[in-house]
């Protein structure tokens, strides 16, 4: 039990087979250490989102075990959710609410009283939307909605942050801002981050360790420099292509 709680995320033979018969992930053994930023990379349909959704308690695995800080996410999902927060890909917000109301609503599901006020203030600061925060979300751009959703997730300061394609659809400026925020929260508050991305440069910039998923299986995982040396690639893109090539 002690080795399980050492990890922020630990999966043992995690398998997800959908009712249609298609395989989401296959015997996945993944370990994310506490305090690190771990990147899951892989092409579309490789099982990144499935993995993150299972960890975030949105999907149930067909087989295998998943622990978040030692808590079994299948047996005790509510306790697991208290330890983490999840930003889905293309996460939006309620159109009829203002940005400020959305922040208040999402954070009121986790905090009350003074802690809630502090979290709201923090989220407002992260969102950095100025006067637009008091306007209905239906008028927001995609980037604004994404930043707004991220602000509530970061301000909740969970022990584990699960981010599915955090910069997907954002312009360069906003992407940099989001990356910096993720890094800042990881460093300042020791928040463990598990993220998925198509953007290898982003992963290289942000992550301490990465795992390459392909067709539901983890091909390789480790520190970025270690992987480059092991496979012989100058960057993550080359590592990915070489590892994928070995499979074929």
């Amino acid at each position, binding site marked *: 039990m002690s080795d399980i709680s050492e990890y922020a995320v630990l999966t043992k033979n995690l398998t997800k087979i959908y009712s249609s018969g298609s395989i989401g992930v296959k015997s996945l053994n993944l370990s994310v250490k506490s305090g690190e930023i771990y990147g899951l990379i892989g092409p579309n349909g490789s099982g990144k989102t*499935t993995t993150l959704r299972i960890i975030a308690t*949105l999907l149930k695995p067909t087989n295998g075990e998943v622990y978040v800080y030692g808590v079994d996410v299948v047996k005790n999902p*509510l306790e697991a959710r208290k330890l983490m927060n999840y930003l889905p890909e293309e*996460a*939006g917000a*309620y159109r009829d609410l203002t940005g400020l109301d959305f922040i208040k609503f999402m954070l009121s599901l986790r905090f009350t009283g003074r802690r809630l006020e502090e979290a709201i203030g923090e989220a407002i600061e992260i969102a950095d939307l100025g006067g637009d925060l008091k306007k209905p979300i239906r008028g927001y751009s995609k980037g604004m909605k994404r930043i707004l959703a991220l602000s509530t*997730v970061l301000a909740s300061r969970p022990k584990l942050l699960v981010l599915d394609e955090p910069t997907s659809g954002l312009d360069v400026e906003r992407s940099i801002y989001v990356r910096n925020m993720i890094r800042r929260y990881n460093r300042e508050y020791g928040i463990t981050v598990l993220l998925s991305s198509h953007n290898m440069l982003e992963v290289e910039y942000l992550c301490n360790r990465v795992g390459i998923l392909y067709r539901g299986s983890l091909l390789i995982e480790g520190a970025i420099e270690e992987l480059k040396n092991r496979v012989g690639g100058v960057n993550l893109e080359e590592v990915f292509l070489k590892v994928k090539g070995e499979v074929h």
Partner: protein
Amino acid sequence: MTLTPLLIREVKAFIKNPAFILGIVFIIGFYGILGRLMSTGIQTAVEQTLNMQIGVVLHDSSDFAMRVLSVANKTSGGRLQLVPSLEAGLSIYDIVVVIPSDFTIRVMELDKPINIESYIKINTISPVVSGAKTNIITVISDLIRKSISYVIAIERNIDPSLIDKHVLMNTTLQVYGKIMKLEEYSTISFLMGFVPMMIAIIMGINATYASQFTATEKVEKAFEMLLAQPIPRRNIVFAKIIGSIIASLLMGIAYFTGMFLILLSATTSTPNTIGNTTGLSVNLIEIVSGKIGFNALLVSIATIILGLIYSGALGITIGSIVSDERIAGALTAPIIFTFIGIGYALIFIGLPVNIITGVIAGITIAPLPVIALVSTMIGDFTVLTTSLLFAVLSTIVVMGIAIHIYNRDIVVLGLRISRFKLKERK
């Protein structure tokens, strides 16, 4: 012509929507079966009613009265049966006509109408059967009038068409043992049809609201974030049910206020036959308190509450397994029609109120007030208790299904029907 591709796209969006197709198939199938059941039930009931024997209490033992009755009996195909008293007649027949002792005297006096008392026993909730029985009274009234003319014409050797005596039929109904006038029964009959219909509509609207709200949340992409929060999923379901109930109640209050205002302006006072003005001849509150009982009213209120929770949970279940409002709407519409259909089928098929129909009413909720009304009138609450028990049980089951779905993959992945998919899976 830019309209054509736009129109094709709109039509295709529905035709290619599996939920829409399923909805159509379901409605056609459901109403087809329901139609056959109703048709058979109604046909049987009407045939039985039209061939029924009618008891006649003859208080006037004159030769003239006997001859009139004999003519009327022959004309009706021998359906009139003499009975010694009203009580004896009603114990055998559903319709009893009482010929008064002054029958012959009144016939012979030119300016006096002939008053005949008639009694109808109604032990069914079917308006078709009760309607057929009350129509028989009109037929008998006409039959007696013509028979009088015929007998007088034979006696005096004149043309029967020259004789026209006015026959006034004063009808009393015994509905599930309760004595009431025809006007009062008409009001109760109207309530039996109107109340379940209204509850079915409210349930349908509520289910639509709940499914639309839930589906909209998914479209807004905030759904997965919500599911990942440290709150029990059942709380999300409860909040959605209560939210849709509040929305439906607000809409319901607005609707009933509108209806009340229409009724108020349409029924202030109407002139009667002797030129005076009078209010409505039937007082709804008097009928509710005197004939129906406030128990039935309380059950109706309880039915609305249960129906709202039931339909809210049902709507949330639908909204949570589809990917957008359009599919939610296409799936919810058949449910509205189902509620209305079942509510009406139970009434129109003319099924007896017993444990089985009580269970059906309980499961479908909307017809519960009819069961309450009948139970109150007969003074036996076994069926009503069973109905209410099943209503509460089915509401708990539907809520349980909604909560169960919220804890399953389907809430994220969406329902898949055949090769079509209602939700894109990653």
